[in-house]
């Protein structure tokens, strides 16, 4: 069943067309990531879905309702983590979650929500004593307080250090275990790769590719990349279509990596050569992304 259904969405601000004919749908239980450089239209689309902005044209259904109507019954089923948002600095974590939970007919117990986001130790700490990462986790807790079916996360880990980011990802994974549908925007490849069941890449207001992160834009059919470093003084390896990169690193783009690795390592063992490094990688989501968006700014 479709949780989000968008057809021909357009948003024009004066001269600027921020969103230019976007179609997308998100099914129940999915983690859908909208991936794109800054200024591509991610937040505009998200805020139209959340009901904060009016669309210029197109058909939008969220949980089978039009979000532009400001329908309180729809708001009761949706949790929103805005890109930049705040809560009262003088309330504690528990008070904040309880306060927001009270706006909903069937809130989740505050202690449960606080545990899901990993703030149990900080439950009685005032918000102004939390670190930036902890405040962001509280943002998620507040969005979960009403036990929503659908959760919007707009750039949820921007400004996080790698450790905090990994914790945040675990929180999102916990959510999917609770059966939530998650609509996520990000400009981080690894975030989309780790979390999303489906990714749509947006550039200049249009969706340029869509699919599961592993097969997006034929990623699974693209050639694997084998890189080895041959020690100095070793005999020349057989010709496998390699190119020599800097530092004596040799790269092979292999249509059949199984065979290529076998030939390469077979030669090395026969010749008594020990590779200093050996890596086999598939093209990353980032490679696909850069190819599609033409390496626009904002890829971090």
């Amino acid at each position, binding site marked *: 069943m479709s949780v989000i259904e968008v057809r021909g969405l357009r948003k024009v601000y004066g001269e600027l067309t921020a969103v230019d004919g976007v179609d997308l749908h998100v099914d129940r239980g999915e983690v859908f990531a909208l991936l794109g450089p800054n200024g591509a239209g991610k937040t505009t689309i998200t805020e139209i879905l959340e009901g*904060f902005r009016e669309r210029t044209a197109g058909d939008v259904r969220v949980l089978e309702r039009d979000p532009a109507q400001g329908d309180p019954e729809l708001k009761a089923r949706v949790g929103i983590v*805005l890109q930049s948002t705040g809560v009262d600095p*003088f*309330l504690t974590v528990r008070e904040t979650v309880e306060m927001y939970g009270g*706006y909903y007919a069937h809130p989740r117990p505050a202690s449960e929500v606080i545990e899901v986001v990993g703030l149990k130790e900080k439950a009685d700490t005032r918000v102004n004593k939390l670190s930036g990462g902890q405040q962001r986790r509280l943002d998620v807790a507040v969005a979960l307080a009403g036990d929503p079916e659908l959760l919007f996360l707009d750039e949820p880990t921007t400004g996080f250090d790698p450790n905090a980011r990994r914790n945040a990802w675990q929180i999102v994974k916990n959510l999917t275990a609770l059966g939530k549908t998650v609509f996520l925007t990000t400009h981080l490849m690894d975030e989309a790769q780790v979390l999303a069941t489906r990714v749509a890449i947006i550039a200049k207001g249009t969706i340029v590719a869509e699919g599961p992160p592993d097969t997006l834009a034929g990623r699974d059919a693209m050639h694997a990349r084998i890189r080895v470093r041959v020690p100095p003084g070793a005999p020349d390896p057989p010709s496998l279509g390699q190119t020599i990169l800097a530092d004596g690193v040799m790269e092979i783009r292999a249509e059949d990596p199984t065979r290529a690795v076998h030939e390469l390592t077979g030669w090395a063992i026969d010749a008594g050569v020990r590779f200093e490094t050996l890596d086999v990688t598939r093209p990353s989501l980032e490679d696909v992304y850069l190819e599609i968006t033409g390496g626009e700014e904002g890829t971090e």
Partner: protein
Amino acid sequence: MSALGQTLRQVRYTNTAFWRNPASAFFTFAFPLMFLVIFTALLGSGEVEFARVRVPGGRLVPLVLEQATYFVGAMAAFGVISATYTNIAITVSFQRDQGILKRLRGTPLPSWSYLLARVLHSMLVAAILVVITLAFGRFAYGTDLPTGRPLLEFLATLLVGSLSFAALALALTAVIPNADASPPIVNATILPLLFVSGIFIPLTDRAPAWITTVGNVFPVKHFADAMRAGYLGNVRLQGTTFRAFAFDWSDLAVIAAWGVLGLVLATRFFSWEPRK
């Protein structure tokens, strides 16, 4: 939960957060008392002459007030304006900048309920402030407290005034571009009025006409006059009881008209999202 229940619940959270913000709570309460002490000390135990009243026997007797008595009434009015107008305009601007208001719009809580809770809370603070100011005046300067009909008029003024100044504060946030700009803008709108309305400096018969004219246009002077009339109640002069100041319901009508204007403008122009 009913909308009213939700609103009262929100008043509780607003109240908790208010008292935990020491700077804001302290200054809201300290300013009127501080000004009361400073003005009374500066102007000594002087008297303010307001008018002459005719006592039995046909003589005209000057109606004078002790400075302290005058300023207790004026500072109570100032306290109400601080607690409602100043406090709401600044707090709401900050909450708008922090994205708190926008986040609320994404919840099923009716947005009017959140703002009404803030208004009700500021009225509660205003009431506490008035009680403290009057009690301070009673014990420090021996001023009398209103009773009877003047007391009812005093309470009616408090109600109409605090609601109206709250509505004007919500309207003002529409022209405040960001939180940092809110204190200067709020002060720029209210400080001159406090001076031309007899709050800081008594307006006697000798006050220039234009000051009185300007004061009469805006709600502050009408509020201060009505608060003073209710607060002073009746005085006895040479064996006869006089109403010290006539309480004029038209003062309340002017304040309420400004309040309605504020409400209309706030409904039309209030912004829930931070200004870019």
